[in-house]
């Protein structure tokens, strides 16, 4: 299955600033997914990122707040912009495996605290 390297693993940020989270995959994948997990909650999809096209955002998430880049088939970034304490969450990237162990692989997550 794919191996995802996600960084930073955690960060504490001041409100009003922005943080960019990176995900690197060890194989080429068509789609990458970005999820948010608020404290004590389940995972909610933020957006789906295709290489070479604009990301597709889920209801309640907008590009100005969560801009995404997908410059190639192995890399993507998610930026959390103009942060507020409500953005404190774990952010995870994910890809769909097409290998022997099909499913979805997740990065280890970025634990963001906004103060």
């Amino acid at each position, binding site marked *: 299955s794919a191996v995802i390297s996600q960084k930073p693993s955690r960060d504490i940020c001041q409100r009003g600033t922005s943080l960019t989270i990176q995900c690197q995959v060890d194989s080429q994948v068509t789609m990458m997914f970005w999820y948010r997990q608020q404290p004590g909650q389940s995972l909610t999809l933020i957006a789906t990122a295709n290489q070479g096209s604009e990301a597709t955002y889920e209801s309640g998430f907008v590009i100005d707040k969560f801009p995404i880049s997908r410059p190639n088939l192995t890399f993507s970034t998610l930026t959390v912009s103009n942060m507020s304490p409500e953005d404190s969450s774990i952010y*995870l990237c994910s890809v769909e495996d097409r290998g022997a162990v099909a499913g979805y692989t*997740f990065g280890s997550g970025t634990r963001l605290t906004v103060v």
Partner: protein
Amino acid sequence: AQSVTQPDIHITVSEGASLELRCNYSYGATPYLFWYVQSPGQGLQLLLKYFSGDTLVQGIKGFEAEFKRSQSSFNLRKPSVHWSDAAEYFCAVGASGAQKLVFGQGTRLTINP
């Protein structure tokens, strides 16, 4: 639209006891079903999945799950839990192709010694 319900927010079992975590889904076609485990401070690890075929699916760490179409359920079981099984468990449903996953609310499992 797809949806997943995990009725139990928190379950406590004794070490060595059997375990069953419930998952009910709503999806118009044949779903792809997954169970993930999240240990404290960790990402998600895939335990098992169901796409088609045998409705009893074996996974890692001694877990299994049974797909019951008539009940729209995909319950996770383990015959004897270990203290290291304490974690958050998420059931998820997806569609064919590179589609998003919809997650249940999760069940937190606590193991009593």
